């Protein structure tokens, strides 16, 4: 009995080895009929206007297209459904020339009327537009001719063109929306212009798309695309290794180091615009003193934590705004320096020679290694006599805690990540450091308040001149950096793992992957996902 068992085990190991060897060679394969992509969450809804999560917006991008698009390599705006645009001198009127000969999946023509319909629909309160503040500046939309649209704004909005590249502004077919009625949200049949057409959404399981044979751009490579909902990171990775799927988002972070050397797969990784930071409540006890906040920054060795706790899935920030955003200006080369002597000296000057006790919250599993690096930070703070007590809670409670007003807040310091769907520094600077965004109005848990910064950020929002706007944001970044309302940490990477044969997948800084083909951009040309 035991002998048989042994022999079986040996055979099993041998078979496993052989199969393993076969997989290593990864011979050239025919293009699969169906591309399968594992995503971590199920869709809530598929109407582009009502998108709330980046990953589902990414799925929607295969079916629906926006007027302008953000190029992932160049990080600049490129034409998609609009071929040209002009902005009036006062920055209030945008005139778009639309691509000709494009049809929606239902056969109706894409034209100025469709654009007008889409934008007016975004203003309809019955449509749940999560980022409606991006729509609010729009005063009117006019169809000037068949292929010309004029959009008038009620106030100067320097980020308007970038805003238009977000999925919620994707153009939908008026006929399809009206035909679908209440079904539209879950089954947007025939409504887009993109390379793939909606086929079926099986709740909790998968979303199936089919090739659009009449696509105006480069012909789609795969007959079908199946997005499989796989909540567990380890399972997503297993599915890639087993050949069940060709691409999976966010495999387990601790595996990434090994996967980078695995000949069967490719890890595609890139910095994202999600900055990870420790917000200090600047209106609580010791943190009222800027010297203490600076000392906190000196006390943390970010590079060491990145290497040992985050598997290098991050880049140390050198400004309040991450580097891929418009308006970014480097404040301190290499990030805030690690210098515990300096930290102790500043603490002593502020009267905290013996340190102090502070509560320190971190979510678990929301950001890469969040609870783990929070503990590393607490350990490093010990070296300068600051006793940070780390605790965690589930995400809904965490958000509720952040939304608590100052009088009742429990926040002394906490880990948070902030990303913005548009690559413009305004998203992080105004969203986190303008005093109007103190909780519960906004979600800036540092309760940072500096009238000079407020004034700069208000000016930046009304400045149509690109260079002057950059200069204003540069000044704001410098002031905020030295005021140190946060412990400046890193911008987190975003990553997917793909089968070796699937080539050309790119990661956008806004935590998306390329939806097959990028629009043509000067100096980069056409970029597409291919199968080798």
């Amino acid at each position: 009995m035991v002998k048989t068992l042994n022999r079986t085990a040996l055979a099993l190991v041998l078979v496993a080895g052989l199969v393993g060897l076969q997989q290593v060679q990864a011979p050239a394969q025919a293009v699969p009929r169906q591309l399968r992509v594992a995503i971590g969450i199920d869709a809530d809804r598929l109407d582009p206007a009502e998108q709330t999560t980046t990953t589902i917006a990414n799925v929607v991008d295969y079916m629906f297209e926006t007027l302008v698009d953000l190029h992932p390599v160049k990080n600049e705006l490129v034409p998609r459904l609009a071929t040209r645009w002009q902005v009036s001198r006062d920055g209030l009127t945008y005139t778009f020339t639309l691509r000709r000969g494009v049809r929606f999946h239902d056969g109706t023509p894409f034209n100025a009327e469709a654009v007008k319909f889409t934008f007016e629909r975004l203003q309809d309160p019955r449509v749940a537009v999560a980022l409606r503040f991006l729509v609010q500046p729009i005063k009117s939309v006019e169809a000037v001719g068949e292929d010309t649209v004029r959009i008038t704004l009620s106030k100067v909005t320097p980020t308007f063109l970038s805003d238009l590249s977000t999925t919620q502004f994707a153009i939908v077919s008026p006929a399809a929306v009206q035909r679908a009625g209440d079904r539209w949200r879950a089954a947007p049949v025939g409504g887009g212009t993109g390379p793939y057409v909606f086929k079926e959404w099986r709740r909790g399981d998968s979303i199936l798309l089919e090739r659009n044979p009449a696509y105006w751009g480069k012909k789609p490579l795969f007959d079908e695309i199946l997005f499989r909902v796989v909540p567990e990171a380890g399972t997503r990775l297993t599915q890639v290794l087993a050949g069940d799927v060709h691409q999976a988002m966010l495999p387990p972070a601790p595996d990434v180091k090994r996967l980078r050397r695995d000949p069967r797969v490719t890890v595609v990784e890139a910095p994202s615009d999600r900055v990870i930071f420790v917000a200090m409540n600047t209106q609580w006890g010791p943190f009222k003193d800027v010297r203490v906040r600076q000392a906190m920054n000196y006390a943390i060795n970010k590079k060491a934590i990145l290497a040992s706790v985050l598997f290098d899935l991050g880049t140390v920030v050198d400004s309040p705004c991450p580097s891929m955003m418009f308006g970014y200006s480097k404040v301190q080369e290499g990030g805030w320096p690690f210098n515990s002597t300096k930290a102790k000296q500043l603490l002593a000057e502020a009267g905290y020679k013996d340190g102090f006790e502070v509560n320190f919250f971190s979510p678990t599993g929301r950001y890469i290694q969040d609870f783990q690096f929070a503990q590393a930070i607490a350990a490093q703070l010990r070296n300068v006599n600051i006793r940070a007590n780390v605790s965690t809670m589930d995400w809904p409670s965490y958000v509720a805690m952040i939304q608590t007003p100052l009088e009742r807040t429990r926040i002394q310091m906490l880990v948070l990540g902030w990303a913005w769907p548009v690559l413009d520094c305004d998203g992080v600077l105004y969203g986190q450091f303008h005093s109007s965004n103190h909780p519960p109005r906004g979600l800036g848990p540092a309760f940072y308040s500096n009238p000079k910064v407020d004034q700069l950020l208000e000016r930046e929002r009304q400045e149509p001149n690109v260079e002057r706007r950059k200069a204003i944001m540069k000044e704001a970044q410098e002031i905020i950096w030295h005021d140190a309302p946060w412990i400046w940490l890193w911008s987190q990477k975003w990553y997917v793992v793909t089968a070796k044969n699937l080539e050309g997948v790119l990661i956008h800084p806004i935590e998306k992957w390329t939806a097959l083909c990028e629009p043509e951009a000067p100096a980069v040309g056409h970029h597409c996902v291919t199968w080798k």
Partner: protein
Amino acid sequence: MGLYLLRRLGLAVPTLLGVTVVVFALIRLIPGDPARLILGLQASEDEVARLRVELGLDRPLYVQYARFFARLVRGDLGYSAVTREPVIGEIGSRLPATVQLAVSSIVLATLVGMAAGILSAARQYSALDYLVMTVALFGVSLPVFWLGLMLMLLFSVYLNWLPAGGYGTPAHLVLPTVALAAFSVAIIARMTRSSLLEVFNQDYIRTARAKGLHGRVVILRHALKNALIPVITVIGLQFGALLGGAILTETVFAWPGMGRLLVSAITARDYAVVQGVVLVFAGLFTLVNLAVDVLYAYVDPRIHYG
């Protein structure tokens, strides 16, 4: 019997009502703002406030419960705040997957568990007995998410025999069934064994053996039937648990069942869905318990329901 069933079903109603009150209160007592969670951190406060009103979250709790209850009486579980689809539909699209997995697991667990328990009891203190009980110990102790990943690694990545998670074909059902059944197999095997051993000491078994009956006949005809009551109880409890608690298995195997629906509804604070799913779970559990009671009477004619 018919009257008994009706009365039992009638008694289930106040139980389920109690469940609705508890669930309604619990999900609202834990912190978390559904509107903010649904719209995301970047959404503006105006939009969040608008959604709160739309979901009726600005109303006092008793008004919210009254609305929920009025709908429930009409058989309407309300709408999901996340997908804005009827909760009935959400549950309907997930229920088949859950039932499928629970049924296949309980069938596998019953067959394997009882067989192992019988073998083990028949050869008490033999090497086989020790082997079965040791394996059973592993079955109870292995966390399902680890076992699931290991099964996928072996059968999907190395051997390429079965898909690594997902839903649709019978092949997809194999690994989650095995992973989910492991715990129940172990419990059922241990219960069958101990229950049988107890019966073995009874006089009538000695009589049966003394009559010269074949060992197999003694065990299967005389002993097993009398040892079944506690086993059925355990199987019933396990089945109820499988119907409602396969959350980890569903997560690891990307199985689109109700457990995952419940977890994602809780993390989104999607109140209507949480209430609906728990209500369905409670209803299923009640039904399973009722079936177990009926089975008792069938197995042991001394049990009467009047």
